[in-house]
């Protein structure tokens, strides 16, 4: 699935050119560019909110459930305790994205290890690791994450671990497929024949060429992880001492009949983030896989 087929000479392709070629394709893909810009805007907003903005999102500043636009000091309105929604949005982005990113990293680490080793060595190692992977795939993700979080107390870290633990099988399968394919290519055979150690071959030779679909998968995993976190917060299984967008939704869920804004604004924030991430992921997917593009 790499964009580059090895040349007939069997030389190892340069690591740079698939990226360059991908970028050329990506550039022309309007939704993908839009997604990238949106994501950039969100990241800037979140960085500002996390590191530069000084307001305390927990401080009670105005009357509870003030609608947006009714009062200048709280342009987005207040929640059921009278806390400023804008502050919540600014400060809540960091933990939300952090959980998403951390969960994606955990997923990648476990998934690539399992899949890579299984795909490279084959045989009984492959069988064993794949059985374990299928085993985790059979557990319904949200349910299992919920069990893990409740048993070990909700916090940002437990959440990231719980989500990472349920999402890695997909990455593992993908990695394995890639490793299986690339393993047979001539340049890898060449590396083995000159006596390179297995570890070196796997991580220095095969992995860089397996990266493109993994990058796509990682991007999408971030989106799924954020949705997971929102879902768990909605169910009330989150850390109340860390303001996150999901927490805002969960805390104000019961007022939705009379006050749509405390739930809608963080919901939109989550939606835009996942939307942007999906567009970028799709764009990357198309860029790395020209065959699947429309004719």
């Amino acid at each position, binding site marked *: 699935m790499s964009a580059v087929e090895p040349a007939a000479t069997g030389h190892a392709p340069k690591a740079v050119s698939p990226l360059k070629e991908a970028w050329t394709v990506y550039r022309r893909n309007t939704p993908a560019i839009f997604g990238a810009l949106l994501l950039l805007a969100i990241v800037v907003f979140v960085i500002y909110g996390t590191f530069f903005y000084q307001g305390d999102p*927990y*401080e*009670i500043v105005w*009357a*509870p*459930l003030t609608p947006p636009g009714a009062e200048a000091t709280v342009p987005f309105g207040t929640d*059921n*305790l*009278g806390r400023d929604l804008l502050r919540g949005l600014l400060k809540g982005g960091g933990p939300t994205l952090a959980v998403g990113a951390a969960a994606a990293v955990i997923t990648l680490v476990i998934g690539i290890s399992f899949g890579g080793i299984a795909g490279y060595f084959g045989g009984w190692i492959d069988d064993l690791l794949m059985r374990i992977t299928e085993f985790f795939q059979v557990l319904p993700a949200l349910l299992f994450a919920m069990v893990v*979080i*409740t048993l070990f*107390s*909700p916090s940002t870290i437990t959440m990231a671990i719980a989500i990472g633990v349920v999402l890695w099988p997909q990455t593992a399968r993908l990695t394995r497929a890639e490793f299986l394919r690339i393993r047979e290519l001539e340049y890898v055979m060449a590396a083995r024949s000159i006596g390179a150690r297995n570890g070196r071959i796997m991580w220095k030779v095969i992995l860089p060429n397996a990266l493109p679909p993994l990058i796509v998968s990682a991007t999408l995993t971030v989106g799924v992880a954020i949705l997971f976190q929102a879902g768990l917060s909605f169910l*009330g*299984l989150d*850390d*109340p*001492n860390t303001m996150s967008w999901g927490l805002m939704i969960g*805390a104000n*869920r*019961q*007022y*939705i*009949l*009379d006050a749509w804004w405390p739930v809608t604004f963080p919901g939109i924030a989550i939606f835009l983030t996942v939307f942007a991430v999906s567009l970028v992921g799709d764009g990357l997917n198309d860029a790395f896989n020209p065959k699947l593009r429309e004719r």
Partner: protein
Amino acid sequence: MKLTRRDILGSAGAALLAPTFAFEAQATDVPKGGTMVMMSTQVPRHLNPAVQSGIATAVPGTQIFASPLRYDADWKPHPYLAESWKVADDGLSVTLGLVKGAKFHDGKPITSEDVKFSIETIKAHHPFKTMFEPVSSVEARDEHTAVIHLAHPHPALLLCLSGALCPIIPKHVFGDGQDITNHPANSNPVGSGPFKIAEFKAGQQIVLEKNPDFFIEGRPYLDKIVIRIVPDLSSVILAIEGGQADFLPFLAESQSIIRLRKSDRLGVTDKGYAAVGPINWLAFNTAKAPLDNKAVRQAIGYAIDRNFITKALLRGIAKQQHSPIIETSPFFNPKIPSYGLDLNKANAMLDQAGHKKGPDGMRFKLTIDSIPGGGEEQQGIAQYLKSQLKKAGIDIEVRASPDFPTWAKRISNYDFDLTMDEVYNWGDPVIGVHRTYLSSNIRKGVIWSNTQQYRNPKVDELLSNAAVEMDPAKRKAFYDEFQTIVGDDLPIYWVNALPYHTIYDKRLGNIPESIWGSMQSMDEVYWKKA
């Protein structure tokens, strides 16, 4: 609301007429029939209130089981399964005369053996130990007479024979030797009350059907009561607003109450909760520094703005609470000190207590817990306190428990500084108030015991005296002094009374408004024909 000696000693012979009990005029042409759909957010474990406390079991349980007495809205007892009762002059025994011809849902007669069995079961298994603790024995003197013998006078006893506190359960079903707390019949009971159980879908729905052989002629008026269990409050509100339900008791959420008041079809009342006495409070761990210092606790009291909490956070729906005893109780003392907002005083007291502000403006750090799922009353106020107590230089960390058992374990094992809590009076102070302040009730591992580890020998003495004092005036004096002392010691800062309201379709008549409300039989509720 004042109880006279005569009320307590009983209505010897006065109540031999068919038990009437209506608030409105007893009409024989009350329309009969119809189904009432009730909503609830609470999930009962089973339907036997003899071995389980709590509202969730009490509401259906009191329709299925009858108790010896019933109470009206003025704290006056009325005959029910006991058509007469007499308290002996020395206060050491109470004789109940049972209605003749009353039958269980399986047709077997209700006798004094069943009353004996029920009281013994409740005494052995119900979490409220103080209810029947003074009962030394119950004598089944003849088929329709039961005598309760007491080790000492017990003024609370009559109240304990009403509502959900004393369901009369069949000995021939529950007395078969199986462990009654796990008895299979708990989920499919043979009862003694106006409604029979038709269906119990655990966690979803309870269907109650009219008992055609109920011992009060012509009752119940309704054919069916369906209780739908929906844990999500928004869905409950939408359902009752849209006419998919007719009755919703125990609603405390302020925004919903305000919203439903606007409905033309629905009535909203706060009556029916006088005996429940639900208090929302902030508890201090008085054995842990710096909270072991009374001045620190009082300072915290001065730093909290009850006005803001009740008027802004709770939207004016709830009333402030300054005392361990609820305002609707005959024993309430209005003269207890109340700690109005005074931040200067709070800061001064803390300075004097030796807790100076550090470079970050904070004096010390405290954690605060709250009952999970408690909403605006629990998590809401805890968050408010975090913000408000900062102004007194106290750094608050809000802790969350993922579920009730975790929170209960923390608190009952004294692993806390501050916690929000909701505790009920349950009618007589002996039942629901003593347990919080008696030093003898400091029981590790048991939630809603004296988890604050508060010890004051004078309070112990006052409460013990009040528990056995039959003279209402003397009893009130004990409780008055008790409230004054704990109001000063402040092991607990009482914030507000939980504003329980009942929402009902206006076409329903005889909505339960007695002191027990919907935790008492609803055999008189009926549909007014339009």
